[in-house]
């Protein structure tokens, strides 16, 4: 048990947790990694490709190695980083990517076969034979590559989303971020301070430097207490800013409940925030990078800064003797801190000849670590001294400090490129940042604590000044201000494998091989070797890979280039992006006025866009949908049926130019439509293709109500606004949707009038003379309720549509059913509606399918050439008016017992069924209970002149074909006697 003294953990409570089935104890404030290290567990996983034993390299979200599976059952979560997984009582974690046990991984054989797994191995090996891919190679690779697993059950947790607005978003709550937040917060600006950690303060919590007369962590604590008291400041812990999007929009993932065994009731597991901010300040700090050497991936080898974090913040160190390997002064800081904590320092191996001298520990100046030993964890390192001798140093821990990489990631999200800073031997933010962004502290390459504080405060003042807000930098405490000294060293040359990218198992050799094989662009190198393409996005490996590449090409690192970073900064689960839009809440649902009644009747519903419409109404004894639909159709045509048609778009059109406006948007004219009359309209797109159709009623000289199809209601309205605002901006026409203001029901069938007469107030004559086909008018029903009546028909029967204010829609439906009993009235759904319109030969969405013209639809004559209307000019194009143009006609099976399907293609009786012989296709097919056989509508070349011809309806998808006869599209009442009755 290696718990050191001190630390920011709560020793008064012990949390028990398990790893690979074994129980351990930790404390609040621990991460899974710190708790395991304090229990002397260094081995936490196996590597991706070679199944090498691995322990944590880092103490943060950049971790490539300590990747584990958390929780069980439906909440099982793969690929979690032990270094940021907050410990809770009962946490259950397992290592992943091992076959057998973590200590004896059967696939560790891959490590011995490593010569076969070099860069490009998969590309080269699994090319042939082709047939092996699906059955053998892919399953094998997938199994071997198993990075964790899921349980397969649906995620039981809820995910939320939200929208926040700020003047200044500060990303990172280390010294720079806290100084900025205090400065901006005290000035009264709307500030959001977000940090991915659960304990804010950044490296103030990991270092031992004092700020003024207090410790760094205490200073951070006091700053946070003040920020919490400011109503204009929102401090968001456990919140990662994952991306800088266009125009000052930032994505933020708040892990609301990840640190709990399970979320509290009604509380989200995570919340995905969209933050709109006028200014942002990136204070994301820097990530230390390793130095590659042979076998540099053994458990126990960590970044020096991570060793300090574990020792200072978490009081954890899984080694009695620790060696340090460094190319800068940070290594000595690590040695001092560990010594203070009582850890023995085996040696500090400093690659610089001018390494600082001390008598507190042994320093090997001008020396490098060349190799390491220890099967499941480090036992010793080999050191090549300045004089060329090799010495073995026994140690269980090695802290490697290769320099700091500023966390420039978010500065690249709008394609900004970082630039090289030779003093730091690192990339710092470039000149092009996302609009409104500034960078401060270590993220800007300012590595001292004092520099972080002052740059943070100054950046906040500047950002607010942009917004016209006066701010004064806070008084800063005296803080560490040592200059950073580094002599770059990225890898130690050697024969064995030296890891660059530990998560994707990419070594120095792989990069060299890629270069030998001609990959000279960094982007190609990355893809060929997969360097930096794991879930850590190469936070600890990219620069190392680049340095090796630069060495190979003989160019400098900045000339070699850099890959840029993309969102997300750290992985985000799909569930968080989805938020509440999952399952039945995937999108909202629109209910019709008769929905509650229909649900009580046991209606089967169908989704039509967002609407739920009754599809049919099963009755007792009916076992198939066809029985219900056939009954509804037959009863309607025999007597009367009622259908909710509220979903059709209704647009109120008013103004002195309303009639002219309709003239322009419809192909056929509306100017002479009389008040009290309804007309069918066909709307074209500007290219002459049919867009929508519907009926328009003239309620007054300057007042129309038009209808659209359910599906096109939104698009037609948008189109009309375009015409009104962009094409004819001075026309006096006003439009507004009234779709939902009126509950509208179709009442169709020979007894439709008789039924309506039961509810229409006696003052209104709806007889055939007073209220003929295509008439409309305001009436009252049921003793004085305002209603609109339209005599229009989609079914081909005598039919009306009656509309009442929506709140009375439910009651009206119940009343119609009640008074309809004496006529054996039925209520029918969308299926019966569809059958009847096919029987009548009315075009609908299947026919207005975005490829058909008025001519194709048999309505060529409706396109009025004496006026300007959208689409009329281009509908004259030659290609749309060929003699063999498709024409809407009807089809019936030659043998009435036969079936055919919509989508079937029409082929000549003796022709081969191929595209060259294609004569057209079927669009709508139904069984007609009135005719007793299948009927169809479809488009046939020159169809109008081919009635009586026999063709084959070929359905290659179902491998079926049927002999069909070309007939009129009007299967029922072609003369229209019924609807005029």
């Amino acid at each position, binding site marked *: 048990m290696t718990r050191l003294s001190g630390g920011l953990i709560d020793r008064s409570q012990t949390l028990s947790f398990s790893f690979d089935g074994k129980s351990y104890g930790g404390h609040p404030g621990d991460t899974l990694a710190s708790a395991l290290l304090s229990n002397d567990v260094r081995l936490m996983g196996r590597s991706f490709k070679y199944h090498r034993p691995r322990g944590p390299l880092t103490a943060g979200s950049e971790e490539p190695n300590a990747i584990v599976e958390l929780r069980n059952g439906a909440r099982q979560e793969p690929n979690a980083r032990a270094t940021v997984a907050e410990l809770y009582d009962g946490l259950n974690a397992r290592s992943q990517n091992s076959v057998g046990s973590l200590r004896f991984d059967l696939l560790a054989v891959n490590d011995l076969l490593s010569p076969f797994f070099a860069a490009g191995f998969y590309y080269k090996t699994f090319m042939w034979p082709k047939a092996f891919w699906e059955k053998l190679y892919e399953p094998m690779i997938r199994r071997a590559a198993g990075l964790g697993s899921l349980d397969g059950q649906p995620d039981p947790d809820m995910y939320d989303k939200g929208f926040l607005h700020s003047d200044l978003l500060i990303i990172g709550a280390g010294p720079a971020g806290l100084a900025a937040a205090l400065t901006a917060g005290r000035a009264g600006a709307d500030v959001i301070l977000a940090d991915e950690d659960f304990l804010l303060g950044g490296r103030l919590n990991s270092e031992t430097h004092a700020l003024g007369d207090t410790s760094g962590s205490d200073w951070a604590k006091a700053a946070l207490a003040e920020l919490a008291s400011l109503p204009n400041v929102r401090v968001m812990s456990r919140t990662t800013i994952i991306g800088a*999007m*266009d*125009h*000052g*929009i930032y994505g933020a993932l708040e892990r609301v409940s990840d640190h709990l065994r399970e979320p509290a009731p009604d509380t989200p597991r995570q919340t995905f925030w*969209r933050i*709109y901010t006028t200014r942002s300040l990136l204070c994301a700090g820097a990530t230390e990078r390793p130095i590659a050497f042979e076998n540099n991936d053994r458990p126990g080898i960590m970044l020096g800064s991570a060793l300090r974090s574990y020792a200072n913040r978490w009081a954890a160190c899984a080694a009695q003797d620790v060696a340090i390997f460094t190319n800068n002064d940070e290594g000595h800081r690590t040695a001092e801190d560990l010594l203070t904590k009582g850890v023995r320092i085996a040696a500090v191996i400093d690659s610089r000849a001018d390494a600082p001298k001390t008598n507190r520990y042994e320093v090997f100046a001008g020396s490098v670590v060349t190799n390491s030993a220890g099967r499941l964890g480090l036992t010793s390192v080999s050191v090549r001294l300045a004089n060329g001798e090799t010495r073995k140093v026994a140690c269980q821990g090695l802290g490697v400090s290769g320099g700091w990489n500023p966390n420039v990631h978010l500065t690249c999200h*709008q394609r900004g490129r970082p630039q090289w800073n030779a003093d730091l031997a690192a990339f710092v933010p470039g000149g092009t940042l996302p*609009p409104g962004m500034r960078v401060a502290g270590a993220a800007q390459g300012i590595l001292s604590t004092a520099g972080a504080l002052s740059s943070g405060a100054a950046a906040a003042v500047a950002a607010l000044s942009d917004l016209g807000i006066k701010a004064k930098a806070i008084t800063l405490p005296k803080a560490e201000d040592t200059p950073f000294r580094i002599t770059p060293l990225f890898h130690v040359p050697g024969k064995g494998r030296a890891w660059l990218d530990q998560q994707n198992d990419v070594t120095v050799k792989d990069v060299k091989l890629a270069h030998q094989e001609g990959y000279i662009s960094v982007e190609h190198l990355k893809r060929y070797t997969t360097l930096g393409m794991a879930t850590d996005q190469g936070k600890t490996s990219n620069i190392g890979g680049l340095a090796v590449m630069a060495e190979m090409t003989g160019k400098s690192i900045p000339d070699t280039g850099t890959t840029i970073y993309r969102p997300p900064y750290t992985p985000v689960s799909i569930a968080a992006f989805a938020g509440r839009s999952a399952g039945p809440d995937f999108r909202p649902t629109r209910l019709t006025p008769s929905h509650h009644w229909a649900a009580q009747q046991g209606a089967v519903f169908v989704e039509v866009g967002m609407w739920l419409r009754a599809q049919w109404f099963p009755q007792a004894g009916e076992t198939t949908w066809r029985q219900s639909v056939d009954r509804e159709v037959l009863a309607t045509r025999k007597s009367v049926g009622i259908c909710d048609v509220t979903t059709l778009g209704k647009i109120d059109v008013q103004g002195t*130019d309303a009639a002219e406006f309709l003239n322009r948007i419809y192909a056929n004219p509306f100017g002479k439509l009389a008040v009290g009359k309804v007309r069918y309209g066909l709307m074209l797109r*500007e*290219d002459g293709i049919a867009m929508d159709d519907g009926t328009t009623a003239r309620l007054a000289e300057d007042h129309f109500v038009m209808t659209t199809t359910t599906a096109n209601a*939104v698009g037609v309205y*948008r189109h009309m*606004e*375009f015409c009104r*605002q*962009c*094409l*004819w*901006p*001075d*026309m006096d026409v006003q439009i507004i949707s009234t779709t939902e203001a009126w509950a509208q029901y179709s009442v169709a069938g020979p007894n439709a009038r008789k039924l309506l007469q039961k509810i229409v107030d006696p003052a209104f004559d709806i007889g055939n003379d007073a209220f003929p086909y295509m008439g409309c008018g305001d009436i009252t029903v049921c003793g004085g309720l305002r209603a609109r009546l339209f005599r229009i028909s989609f079914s081909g029967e005598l039919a009306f549509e009656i509309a009442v204010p929506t709140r009375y829609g439910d009651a009206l439906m119940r009343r119609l059913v009640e008074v309809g009993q004496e006529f054996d009235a039925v209520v029918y759904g969308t299926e019966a509606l569809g059958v009847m319109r096919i029987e009548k030969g009315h075009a609908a969405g299947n026919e207005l399918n975005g490829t058909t013209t008025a001519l194709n639809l048999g309505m060529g004559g409706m396109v009025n050439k004496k006026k*300007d209307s959208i689409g*009329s*000019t*281009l509908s*004259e*194009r030659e290609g749309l008016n060929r003699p063999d143009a498709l024409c809407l006609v009807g089809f019936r099976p030659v043998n009435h017992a036969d079936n055919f399907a919509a989508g079937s293609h029409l082929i000549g009786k003796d022709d081969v069924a191929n595209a060259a012989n294609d004569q057209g296709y079927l669009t709508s097919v139904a069984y007609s209970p009135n005719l007793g056989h299948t009927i169809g509508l479809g488009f046939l070349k020159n169809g109008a002149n081919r009635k009586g011809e026999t063709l084959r309806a070929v359905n290659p998808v179902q491998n079926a074909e049927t002999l069909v006869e070309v007939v009129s599209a009007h299967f029922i009442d072609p003369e229209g006697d019924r609807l005029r009755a």
Partner: protein
Amino acid sequence: MIIPHPLLGPRDSQEFTYLGDVSLIDRPDWQATGAVDQFHDYLYLRDNPAGLHRELWFHEQGDRSWLVVTRDTRTHEITGAELARDVARTKGRST
């Protein structure tokens, strides 16, 4: 993305739908000679600039205004937004 609505200030582009080049305002005269060709060019021929692009956006989930937004296609920077109705009038469109 954020669209700077001329009446309502900055608004999330989620509230908008996109149509395309502002030249869609320039609908030809149906009675002009060669009207079919003019309509063809109007409908199908567009510039595709790398740089400033004036384009039509509809504030569908907002005030139902059509806007002409000037956007740099290389950076997404938006440098202006006007009511399309006003733009149409300056282009000489009326009734």
